């Protein structure tokens, strides 16, 4: 749903992250939520406690709609955590009970 412009201004290092077990390379300037939006869009991003699907709204730490599992810790705020080499990201679209 989001793609990187091929005319990006600054040469940027890419890092490898694992999203739901698959390796991907993303710009190191991204946060986890941004990387997931680039790689997968919002389909299956996360499920709310009421069972409805949700996805990041604010990208700046306000709305808490970006909760995601990072390196095994559930409910991290994806929009505040920069991606890092080797990071393991799991979407919480399934049965994870989140806040």
């Amino acid at each position, binding site marked *: *749903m*989001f*793609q*990187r*412009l091929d*005319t*990006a*201004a*600054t040469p*940027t290092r890419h890092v490898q992250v694992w999203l739901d077990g698959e390796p991907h390379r*993303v*710009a190191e*300037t*991204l*946060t986890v939520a*941004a990387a997931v*939006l*680039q790689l997968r869009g*919002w*389909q299956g*991003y996360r499920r*709310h*406690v*009421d069972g*409805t*699907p*949700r*996805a*990041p*709204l*604010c*990208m*700046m*730490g*306000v*709305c*808490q*709609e970006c909760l995601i599992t990072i390196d095994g810790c559930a409910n991290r*705020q994806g*929009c*505040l955590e*920069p991606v890092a080499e080797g990071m393991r990201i799991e979407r919480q679209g399934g049965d994870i009970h989140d*806040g």
Partner: protein
Amino acid sequence: MMAESRNADIAIVGAGPAGMAAAVTLADAGYRPTVFDMNAAPGGQIYRQLHAPQASDAVMGKDYRRGRELLDAFLQADIDHRPGSRVWWADNDASGTALGVLARGQTQRWQARQLILAGGAMERGWPFRGWQLPGVMNAGAAQILLKQGALVPSIPPVLAGSGPLLYLLAWQYLRAARPPALILDVAPARRYGEVLHQVHRAWLGRDYLLKGARLIGALKRAGVPIRQGITALEAEGDTAVERVRYRHKGRWHTQPSELLLTHFGVTPEPQLARSLGLEHVWHAGQQCFVPRRDATLAAGTNLWIAGDGGGIGGALNAEREGRLVALSLLENEQRTTAEQRREGQALLAARRRDLEARCLLERLFRLPESWLDDQSAETLVCRCESVSRGELDLAITQGGAGPNQLKAFTRCGMGPCQGRQCGESVTRLLAQRLGGTPDAVGYYHIRPPVHSITLGELAAREASRA
């Protein structure tokens, strides 16, 4: 028991234009302020990622580039900059302010003699039916993706709402050769004419008006359809947005789209100031609460607020307020030179003019106060706890006579966003239903943590220092 405190003579929360300008001014005067920001790099909202821009200048426009000088000054000055630090707790007394800071998974306790809050603004939570669906995103959030990684939508989005940021983003997408499918503006076309009639203000605000006219002109020339004066908005779809519905000139229209980017203006990010118990007043023009500050930007003893966190003035004003607050603080310590005092006076005058001019924007982008009332009863007001307008109405008739009673009765505002998204909607609704002013209705009690922290992180004091 207590983890030992670290000391900061002057602490600044936020490294946006306001926080950076304050820090640079203080560093010039021989202080070494401590600046906390939860982001990995300085810049704040407007200048996010400016140290290594991702999208080109041609796409971003020159307002973005403009921050470079300030950013460089900030990066070069002797400042204790602490990126990746979330200030989640604050408590203020006569001796200063204690801060709880989460950095690298640990809770640090800081004691600051002087505190400058420069936490900036957030996009206003403005409920409409379907706004919780994936595929609805804040326009500012989409702009963050653009700044962070030159990410643009792969399908033409619908942009809806009100405010300069909406047109700025549309223009940036246009420059990136990804024009939006449709722009839905809440402001009716006749507002532009009304605003121009306020001749004095229009003159003061000519820069804003020209900038706006340039953006809109470019979009129109490129053939982007713009509907001004929409009176209702809805997002529809099963598991994500499929259609956008809107009412224009009394009739409903449907636009198929999987991406709806909305923006309903910005409001001060209230949590830290609220949790410190600072007094807030309703700003009728900005349609939100703002913390009470005096002319020196003091909000309490040894406590100051600069930038959009104190009321919306925009990036240039935030930078100006950053300098002003630093000068006020120096004046307070009797450390200003005659030249600095003159500079302070000039900044104050410029600020007055600018805020006067901004009244135009407020007028132009004014949101209908009756919006929530016009929503269908199932529209969610509180996204975190899924509380609808209808449920709030029921609880009001049962005796939920204030924001905190209503929160207790319905869980509205009890979720992890701590009411940032619903707080002012609830104040508005109560004011309408019970007939009072927003000031009389009040707001939620805000308690720490104002940013998320796990029990483990809270319990983990800095071991080596305890």
